[in-house]
């Protein structure tokens, strides 16, 4: 579990967009192994599109994403699928497969992508559900879970293949402050335990200040990154008016 200081992920000159519309251009940053990295920005600034490019759902128009020195989008499709297995992704709405129980949701990646026997898979699914505090809910259907439990179940599924990088899309959205805080704690515990690198998209200020130690701020008007650094540091030191207003929950001047 040695964590070095070399970057786990490196984004260089990235431009993302749909069709002819550019959403963000020339974005560069690097994510240190073992850190919790925040992608911040106001609604519509392209945070989610940037994350979609990072998890292989949206091909960038220009630039590169390097995963441990390997250019992700330059790789073949088969190789990309292999790299993807090192990513765990928690989607905003949980995106649990509604036709399966919670335990089956966690077990499916292991069933399809590993050669393990059923007993091992059952045990691994069980330990992952225990880690997120859902040991009794394995036989429930996703529709029966509360909002906080859906996020936890989604997190357990993201952990299924023991990923080295965990991507979280607005983990605390739709949760009450207490539940959101407990999810933040859980994310930190899992990071410390497994030594994962975490990239999260969020505009939930308390959660950004509590768990992130680095980040990038995407400007909605400038269409590029306007600040780099930990959310706490940006709140205290950044002079950009948009970032300043965002971090202090004020109207922009």
């Amino acid at each position, binding site marked *: *579990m040695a964590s070095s200081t070399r970057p786990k992920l490196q984004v260089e000159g990235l431009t993302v967009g749909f069709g002819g519309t550019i959403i963000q251009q020339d974005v560069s940053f690097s994510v240190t192994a073992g850190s919790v990295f925040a992608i911040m920005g106001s609604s519509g600034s392209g945070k989610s599109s940037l994350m979609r490019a990072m998890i292989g759902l949206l091909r960038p128009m220009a630039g590169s994403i390097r995963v441990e020195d390997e250019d992700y989008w330059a790789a073949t499709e088969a190789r990309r699928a292999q790299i993807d297995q090192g990513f765990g992704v928690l989607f905003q709405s949980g995106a649990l*497969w*509604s*036709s399966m129980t919670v335990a089956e949701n966690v077990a499916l990646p*292991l069933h399809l*992508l*590993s050669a*393990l*026997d059923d*007993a*091992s*898979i059952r*045990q*691994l699914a*069980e*330990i*992952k559900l*225990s*880690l997120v*505090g*859902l*040991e*009794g*809910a394995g036989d429930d259907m*996703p*529709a029966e879970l509360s909002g*906080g*439990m859906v996020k*936890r179940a989604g997190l357990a599924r993201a*952990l299924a*293949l*023991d990923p080295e990088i965990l991507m979280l899309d607005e983990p605390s959205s739709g949760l009450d402050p207490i539940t959101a805080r407990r999810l933040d704690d*859980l994310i930190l*515990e*899992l990071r*410390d*335990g*497994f*030594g994962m690198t975490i990239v999260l998209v969020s505009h939930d200020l308390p959660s950004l200040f509590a768990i992130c130690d680095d980040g990038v701020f995407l400007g909605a008007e400038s269409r590029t990154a306007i600040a780099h650094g930990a959310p706490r540091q940006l709140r205290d030191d950044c002079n950009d008016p948009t970032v300043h207003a965002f971090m202090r929950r004020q109207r922009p001047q």
Partner: protein
Amino acid sequence: MTVLQTPKSPMTAKGGVWTASVDGSTVSIALSGDWVARRDGVEFDAAVKIIRPGVSLVAFDAVKLGHWDSGLIAFLFNLRRAAAQTGAAFQDDGLPAPARRLLKLAEGPAEPRPAVPPTPLLERVGLRAMALWTESVDAAALCGNVLLRGAATLRGRASMRTRDLVSEMFDAGLAALPIVTLVSALVGGILAFIGATELSKLGAGSYVANLVAIGMVREMAAMMTAIIMAGRTGGAYAATVSAMQGAEEIDALRAIGISVFDYLILPRMLALTAMMPILYLYSCGVGMVGGLCVGAATLKVTAVSFFVQAQRALTGAELAIGLTKSLCFGAFIAIVACSVGLRADRSATAVGKAATKAVVVGIVGVITLDAVFDLCASVLGV
């Protein structure tokens, strides 16, 4: 002192290894190698092998431990549970600190969830009966609504947008023409083929036109278009409405005070009911052309004689029966599909189930209705 070890198997040859040295009532477990869960899995009976009765202390040595992940945590979790059962002390200070944290996290309290006691049989029967009753009441209410709102529409008082009606009519009409053309031509051809082989044995080959005309107009055109539309459009209605249900779009309509019936169901029902007779007439025509082609190929029937013969065979009553059937089938398919969609659960699987149910109930219902029509017609002597 006895020493136990990870069983050697090809699966675990490269993987993590545990070596348990039993000294009296103390077990010290040395961990080494890389523990990779998705390569090596979890040795589910290790805890039973290590924690024998009489063991009172479990200690660890992780100096040689390499890379590890949830596989190690699962192994330790099982050990800890077994130790707790036999009352042995679990001394975890030899483990890496992150592993201790994860172990603590996994042992932590579960998310509180409401306990659901199992429902007794009698209660289940009662609930089932009540659900069935509610469903029947719903169906009756829907039929009543259809009549009430249908009357309101005729007087121009329904809150329905013409735009929706037109787009639904396009979907249920023009867009269905290719498949209706293909199926009708084939059905007409099949009828003519049966007629050509069977009737010519009796020397009544010229009656092929009668068979095709009456068969299409009275039975097959109405039924085949209804079956096509139940599969094509009924399934689509149910899927759309249930997907809207899942995305809370229907709740949004209700919350604003828009009548779900007027906005969603009425345009679909009217469109399908209006398009079905047109598709029926079209299907009759195409079917007869199909029959003519087969007749011309097998019995050398000419077009003129075929249509003259068909015209003689057909009466207004046949056409009226066919048209009535197609009107009823259209309304029936639309109502069934929309009500199935409205009653669906709110998940991705529910969309598939609703579409399947709408198609199955639609097709079975159409065939049953058709039989009822024929029974009535024969009793009335039409």
